[in-house]
């Protein structure tokens, strides 16, 4: 699975897709494969404030809980309600149907400090090398 070039990526393996001042956020393919089969997702309700770098929910597999970190500051507009019944979408389509929240960005320029697809792919290649050492 490739990493969409129009997305930006955080060190915590979230992606953000900006369209104007609304952005969609999810976890990356690397993150879902590390986590395993997702069985449970905890997401904030609309209106909740998000602060860049702070946790705003969690994604759980059978064996682990993974906090999710806001890649930017803003406010939740919508959480992906389908994930309650179908949390496995995060595994099968992490960059699309497995999106977590849509948020209104406080400052769209924040996102430019995140990694682009090429930088993120290099970042996880490093991580994979460390893991197999």
């Amino acid at each position, binding site marked *: 699975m490739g990493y969409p070039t129009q997305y930006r990526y955080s060190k915590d393996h979230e992606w953000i897709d900006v369209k104007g001042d609304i952005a969609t956020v999810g976890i990356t393919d690397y993150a879902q494969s590390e986590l395993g089969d997702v069985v*449970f997702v905890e997401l904030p309700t609309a209106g909740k404030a998000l602060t860049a770098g702070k946790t705003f929910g969690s994604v759980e597999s059978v*064996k682990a809980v993974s906090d999710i970190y806001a890649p930017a500051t803003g406010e939740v507009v919508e959480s992906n309600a389908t994930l309650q019944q179908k949390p496995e979408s995060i595994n099968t389509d992490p960059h699309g149907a497995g999106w977590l929240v849509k948020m209104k960005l406080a400052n769209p320029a924040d996102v430019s400090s995140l990694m682009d697809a090429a930088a993120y792919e290099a970042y996880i290649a490093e991580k994979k090398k460390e893991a197999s050492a």
Partner: protein
Amino acid sequence: MDSGNSPNTPTIRKTALNALHRRLGAKMVNFGGWDMPVEYPCSGNLLCEHRAVRSGVGMFDVSHMGDIRIHGAKKPGGALAAVQHLTMNDASRLAIGQAQYSAMLYPSGTFVDDVIVHRLGEDDYLLVINAGTREKDINWVRENTKGMDCQVQDLSDTYTQLAIQGPRAAEVLQKLTDAKLGTVKNYWFTHGTVCSLPNTLIARTGYTGEDGFEIYIPSDVATSERVWNAVMEAGKEFGILACGLGARNTLRLEAKMALYGHEISDEINVWEPGLDRYCHLEKGEFIGRAALVKLKAEGLKRTLVGLEMVDRGIARDGYRCVDENGNEIGAVTSGSPSPTLGKNIALAYVPLAMAALGTPIYVEIRSQRCKAQVVTTPFYKRVKKPLAVSQ
């Protein structure tokens, strides 16, 4: 950042099958100092592995576990005396070829480790112990049998131990051995030729709540890989999958089997997890007996219960349990989604007054109080088929 090269960093240990697991692309984890597979993407990962064991067959590399042989007494009964002194179950009830679940206790009546005791011969016993407590256990056994008439042998590195588990396990293993598996009852064992390896220990034991066998083969890489591959080949028609520690945990939790460091530990006594039936006070002296008698007279303060989540949320190891007023009443020892039940389950220690079935218990899950209720355990019990003796 610790580079791992400091003198105090122990090197991670590997079983003989480590290279094979990595070739299979297993996700690896450090378990008690061992580099072990937690799940195999080629098996479809944890949920697939778990289901394979419940409905067909799966295989685990459990070579990280330890093995202590107690034998070689000058006078008959010396080894038995040592085993009786060290463990809480009554080993004198064992026939040759029989095994029992037991435990070694501290003088306080708390757990050194749980163990499966196998009677190999007239006065010859094999204790199979946990991976994380190998050194502690062997030192404990040596210390506490000093001056006793027996020899203690650490055979932990001698064996590769494979657990073949599930309703089809017997059919798989039967293809590879001349031993008549149909005559081996649950918690009994035999010796037979397995994959041309003579005199191989084949035990009808396991940690999954399913029928299954554990085989003990020489620990050289070539033999270990050959046998692993032979089992996988023999199991193909039954959909055998390689299974890791992730599924091992969900399977044993559903079957309410204790895990050292969780349901049992050096701070938990025998009565609290309800392991009474494996503790035979009447057999005579053993380490911890006096404390257990006293504790029994004092009465239980807390007890292990099964929980099923009512609210959305997964209770996990170590999460606090509170009553409806928010008072802390205990903690979760093990918790996870249950693949078989489709519910989130847990084991927890709670006060006796809150142990009745249906009692609401609240689990603190990341600062939210989520409701659970006390349910019967084990959460899952396999349907036992009558033993086919005529194989």
